[in-house]
C-alpha cells in the first residue's frame, strides 16, 4: 500500500488492563504515557504511539531498485520509549534499548532476550569507545552494525556535547539502509535536549 498513514492504535486501555491482570514484574506500562482525566469506561483519546508513516512515495522503480525514501520529518518525542518505538518501526527491529555512557540501560521495548540487554548495552558502549580509537581523525562514531550468527545488532550514538552520550541499540533481523540510519540519528539528536 502506498499510504501507510494508519491511525495510531489506542492501546492505553489495553495496557492498563494488562498491567492489572499480569504479575507485577511483567507489567511494562509506560509511566510517561500522556493520560487524560480518569474515566470509568474505555473512552480515551488516541495516544500518540508515533506509528506515523515512515515510508512514502514508493513507486515501482524504487521497489525494483530496493531503495526507499524515509520520511525523516523531525518530530518531538518526550520519552526514550517513544523514540525506541519509532526507531523499531523504521528498522523493523524486534527490540530496542537505550544505554547511557555508563553502560546502564535506561529504556527498552519489544521482544527482549531472556537474559535482558544490560550486558549487551554495557559492552556496546565500551566497544564504541574502542572503535573510535581506530581513526580519531574520522570524527565521532555515529553508528555500528554487527552481524552475528543469530542476530543483527545496530547501535546509534548520540552525544550530548558534555562528554556524555547515549547509545540506542536495535536488535533487528534486517539491515537498515544508509538513509534509514541517517534518519534515526537525526531524530535522536533532534530530541536529545528533551530527554537528557
Amino acid at each position, binding site marked *: 500500500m502506498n499510504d501507510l498513514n*494508519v491511525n495510531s*492504535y489506542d*492501546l492505553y*486501555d489495553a*495496557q492498563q488492563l494488562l*498491567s492489572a*491482570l499480569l504479575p507485577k514484574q511483567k507489567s511494562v*506500562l509506560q509511566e510517561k504515557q500522556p493520560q487524560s482525566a480518569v474515566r470509568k469506561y474505555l473512552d480515551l483519546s488516541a495516544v500518540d504511539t508515533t506509528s506515523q508513516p515512515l515510508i512514502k512515495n514508493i513507486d515501482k522503480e524504487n521497489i525494483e531498485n530496493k531503495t526507499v525514501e524515509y520520511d525523516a520529518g523531525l518530530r518531538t518525542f518526550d520519552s526514550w520509549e517513544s523514540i525506541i518505538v519509532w526507531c523499531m518501526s523504521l528498522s523493523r527491529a524486534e527490540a530496542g534499548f537505550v544505554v547511557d555512557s555508563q553502560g546502564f540501560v535506561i529504556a527498552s*521495548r*519489544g521482544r527482549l532476550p531472556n537474559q535482558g540487554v544490560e550486558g549487551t548495552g554495557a559492552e556496546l558502549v565500551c566497544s564504541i569507545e574502542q572503535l573510535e580509537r581506530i581513526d580519531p581523525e574520522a570524527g565521532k562514531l555515529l553508528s555500528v552494525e554487527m552481524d552475528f550468527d543469530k542476530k543483527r545488532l545496530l547501535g546509534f550514538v548520540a552525544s550530548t556535547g558534555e562528554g556524555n552520550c547515549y547509545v540506542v541499540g536495535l536488535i533487528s533481523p534486517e539491515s537498515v539502509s544508509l538513509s534509514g540510519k541517517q534518519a534515526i540519528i537525526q531524530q535522536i539528536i533532534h530530541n536529545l535536549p528533551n530527554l537528557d
Partner: protein
Amino acid sequence: MANIISVVSSKGGTGKTTVALNLAVALAENGENTLLVDVDPLGAVGLSLAQNDAEWTGLAEYIIKAVSLEDAVIKTKLSTLSILPRGRLDPLDIGKYEQLLQSSAVLREVIKSVGDSFRYIIIDTPSGLGTITRAALSASTFALLPLQAESLSLRSISQTLRVISHIKESENPDLQLLGIVATMVLLHQDSSFHIMNTVWSSLSGVLETYIPRTDVYALASEKGLPVAFLGGKYPPEALRFELLATEIKNIIQELGGTTGDPDERPQRELI
C-alpha cells in the same frame, strides 16, 4: 486439580479453535492428560475434525441429562486426549443452549466431575464476549487470548481484557491471564509486521511463541486433523504448538499453578 484454560477473543476468526485444538494435542502428546471442551454453539472443534454437525453427542445432551458425562466425553486415539464436544445442537436452539449453559452452571459441574482426571482442560469458546464466554471464564483458572495480526483484532483487544478483568474482580478471583498469543502472523507483509511491531512494543503479556499464517492449517482442516497428525514430514507448525505448550506450562508454574513437573530434580551422573 486441573489447569482450566479458556481460549477467548471478542473478534471472530482469530484462531481460537485452531489454538485450542492444537494446543490440546501438543499438551496431550507431551504426556499430559488433557480434555478439550467445545462450548462454542458452532461446534467448531467438531467441524475442524471433519465431523458431521450432528455426529457427536456432547455437552448439549449432558446439559439436559440425556447422557452421562462419561458417555459425552469422547476418548481419542491419542490416549491422553479426550474431547467433550458441543453435542447435537439444532442451530435454532442456540439461544436456549446459551441460557442453559449460563444458568445451570454446568461447566463448573463438568469441571468438578472430571477435574481430577485431567491435568489440562482447554475450553474453546465462541467469538464474542457473551454469556457462554463469560460462563467459561467464570469456571476457568486461566485465560488465553489469540490475537490475529491485523488491525481490527488489535483495536478490539481491550474489550476482551475488560471482560476478563471484570470476571476476575466480580466472579472468579482465581482467574489469571496466561497471555496473548499472536496468530496468523506474516512478518514479511507490511501490515502484519506493523501490527506485530505495535504489539511487541506496546503490550505486556505477549507470549514469545506466535503462530504464523501458513497453508498447513487449511490442509489440516480439509483433512479433519490437528497439524501434528498430518502425514509426511513433521510440520513446523506442530513444533510451534509444542513450543506454545511448553511456554504455557512455564507460565502456569510461575503463576503458582501445578503442571505436575517437579520443581527440583536429584543430581544425576553423566559418566
